[in-house]
């Protein structure tokens, strides 16, 4: 008896659907999908530091970063444009979530390498995930001074490492924020005013002003600066310009750092004293492996 009742109810229900318009009928038949947030940040860098983004599978990014000297160094130094600090980098997406990168910076003639993995992806739909989390592990090798010039400076002393856990949320289509607890370990430091282990909290944000332009900001707050430290917290403001496969980032920052160690642990300038460097990051994307 109860079964018959159910059947009758079903008939009524399906008739109700049938009378609806076809689009609503289709919407009912749709399988629930999952939509991942994309472009939380435009590039793999917010300003100086790493962003939560990973490259897509088979994508190779060439990134050229450049910082000039201090703007307050005056007209003789052409407001800093006479000095140049450069990093050339490559990053490749092994999968949509796993990437590797290498780079070489003029600061201490440093080579860097990193691996990054997107642990969680912000999504809506059948899986609701509020955050994207990317873990990044990097290593840095100073190649200056040369071994033959300074034999006491061993290979071990040249090494430094960093671990970052970038947690980001695309709050709406225009505004994204990320917070990054991180640690930098340097094997050799000047014990008088430097720590072997620096802990810091990075904060980055971007606000889209048009479809191709965004304003960005970044701050690295050092949690345990050495009592004698003459270093500063790195910060910066930037403008992202995106044109197809290129991202241009114009930057004002107090840091000459182009990789995590130098940004977090070795920033010298006092932003509010005018020790500001103009700079840019330019990235070009190449799709090496095509999906079809």
């Amino acid at each position, binding site marked *: 008896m109860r079964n018959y009742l159910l*059947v009758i109810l079903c008939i009524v229900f*399906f008739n109700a659907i*049938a009378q609806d318009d076809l689009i609503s009928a289709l919407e009912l038949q*749709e399988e629930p999908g999952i*939509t991942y947030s994309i472009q939380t940040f435009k590039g793999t860098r917010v300003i100086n530091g790493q962003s939560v983004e990973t490259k897509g599978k088979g994508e190779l990014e060439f990134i050229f970063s450049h910082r000039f000297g201090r703007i307050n160094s005056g007209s003789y130094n052409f407001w800093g444009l006479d000095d140049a600090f450069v990093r050339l980098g490559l990053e490749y997406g092994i999968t949509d979530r796993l990437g590797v990168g290498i780079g070489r910076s003029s600061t201490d003639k440093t080579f860097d390498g990193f691996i990054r993995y997107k642990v969680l992806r912000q999504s809506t739909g059948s899986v609701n995930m509020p955050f994207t989390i990317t873990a990044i592990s990097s290593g840095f090798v100073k190649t200056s001074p040369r071994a033959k010039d300074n034999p006491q400076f061993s290979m071990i002393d040249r090494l430094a490492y960093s671990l970052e856990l970038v947690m980001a949320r695309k709050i709406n*289509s225009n505004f994204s924020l990320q917070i990054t607890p991180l640690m930098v370990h340097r094997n050799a430091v000047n014990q008088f005013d430097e720590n072997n282990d620096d802990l810091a909290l990075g904060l980055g944000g971007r606000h889209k002003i048009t479809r191709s332009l965004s304003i960005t900001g970044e701050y690295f707050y050092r949690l345990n600066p050495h009592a004698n430290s003459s270093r500063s917290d790195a910060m910066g403001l930037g403008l992202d310009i995106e044109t197809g496969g290129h991202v241009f980032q114009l930057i004002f920052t107090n840091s000459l750092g182009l990789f995590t160690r130098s940004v977090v642990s070795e920033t010298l300038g006092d932003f509010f004293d005018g020790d500001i460097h103009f700079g840019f990051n330019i990235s070009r994307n190449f799709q090496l492996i095509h999906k079809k």
Partner: protein
Amino acid sequence: MRLSLCIILLFVAESLIAQRYKSEEGSITFFSDASIEDITATNTKAISIFDVSSGEVAFLVTINDFDFDKSLMKEHFNEKYMESDKYPKATFKGRIMDYDSKVKGDQEVTAKGELTIHGQTKSINVTGVISFNDNRITMDSSFMVELEDFNVKIPKLLWQNIAERVEVTIKFIY
């Protein structure tokens, strides 16, 4: 068990009464022919309902399910052009004119209806081919869409990458 069998039977019965068919396979492809590079994207998760008795037909496609050759293209497509977070779906709702469901083989037909893309709705007339065979119906059509009609703007810095008209090809099997 008997109950679920009943419900399944009802589903079948219901679709027979209304002569409504849900698509088993559906794909929508668009093609943009521009000076720098041609762009093609395909969505194989498109779904459709076709009512054979009345000729009414509806298509529904999720913008984010279009697959591109390059992952960055897919990101730009969703983020910059289609704004798929605001307008996640595109739909067509209309009626297919002058066909005979008893005739087997291909028939040239015209569909009239409303196409909604990027939150904008426009009445369109498209021609296509419908084919009734023993136990399946297929529909094929190809038509041009002007981006401007649907308020899809091409960023100035990207002007040469995307054509202002794209060719849309659909194929459904019921």
